[in-house]
């Protein structure tokens, strides 16, 4: 049923964002440190893969959060009930996943602006 793990779910999307961020940064940093002066094609390919996976997971969270949020009547999230609590968690999950989605997109875009390792 509704378990303690629901609170951890709140952190899932931002954790996916931070994993994506770390992966992109480390890939670019190690590539440019070990192969200076080369172009960034491989880095771009890897970034695309990371981004697709990350956006997929986060989109699912957006969807689930929305569903949890809409599962009962409006304004229930300040009500003292299991429903209210779930609705609140759902909305927060939805919002934080949306923010993570945005941040992941910006991150990926930044990689595409650059051609080479300078």
């Amino acid at each position, binding site marked *: 049923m509704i378990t303690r793990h629901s609170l951890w779910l709140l952190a899932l999307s931002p954790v996916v964002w931070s994993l994506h961020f770390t992966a992109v940064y480390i890939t670019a940093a190690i590539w440019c440190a070990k192969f200076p002066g080369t172009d960034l094609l491989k880095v771009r390919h890897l970034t695309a893969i990371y981004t697709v996976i990350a956006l997929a997971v986060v989109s699912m969270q957006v969807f689930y959060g929305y569903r949890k949020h809409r599962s009962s009547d409006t304004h229930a999230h300040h009500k003292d009930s299991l429903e209210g609590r779930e609705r609140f968690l759902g909305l927060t999950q939805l919002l934080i996943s949306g923010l993570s989605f*945005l941040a992941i997109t*910006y991150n990926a*875009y*930044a990689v595409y*602006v650059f*051609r080479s390792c*300078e």
Partner: protein
Amino acid sequence: MKQLKAEFLFLFLLISCQGPYSALGPAGSAARTISGMFWWLCGAGLAIWLLFVALELYAILVKPGPHDLKKTRLFVIGGGVIFPVIIITISIYFSLAPLPDLVKMAPKGSVVVKVSGLQWWWRVKYPLANDQEIEVANEIWLPVNEPVQFLLSSEDVIHSFWVPSLAGKIDMIPGQTNHLSFTPTKTGHYLGSCAEFCGTSHALMRLDVKVVERNVFDEWLKKQERSVKKTGSPGETAFVSNGCISCHTVRGISSLGKIGPDLTHVGSRRRIGSGILNNDANQIHRWIDEVDLIKPEAKMPSFKSLPIEERKALAKWLEGLK
């Protein structure tokens, strides 16, 4: 009080933003890009701030009563989410666009200048075609309208190379070589500072940069390359006999000294002491006497113990090394 008034007036005039150290009076390609960006950001920032304050004032003064909850929620989503997302998306797009050009290297064949930071001066080297290098100190000349490639490092702590009118800054880190390239666009005289805290006299580590026409630059470089002729003058003798040559090089007299700035053509520089004193015999004399007071904890010891005639001759001789 009068000084205060003058300062206030000065402040208003200052909105013209010119000045030898100013980032807003650009004379280089990089500084120009950044300066242009700054004015847009200022405008946008001012508009957003005014909007915010207007809303605050509206909420507390104009209609200090309850508002409709539903409309306000829409306002929150619209103003707090959609508006910032649009602004930030635009800002990310336009702010990242100039970055690749600002960090790229200058094309091959450009003038190369190697600068090393030390506590608290700048070692400057111009590599020549024949694998040789001309070493000068604390003053850099550049040809106008040509891209220049700076190679920057440090021989002790982290410093930062910054000539605001020409370009942004780049740190000088021991163990690595950093790149900076831009094209100076206006002839003139520009000043720079070390921009990373590097110890006691960090504030006194300044730099002179002169941008001139190509032919003037070539002449200057040729002159800097020439060695000094031995004359046996009292100043020259003092320079050798008092151990100055163990730290300073004057090509033609001695090339052993690498610890301190190269003084071969020190008389030709606008300033001495890395941009802090005017270059004339009196100031040079003062430097020799009181370097420890002028630049606290500088590695050069004070030579006040020498007889005053020697110090005078030394200063005069150095002033003459044009």
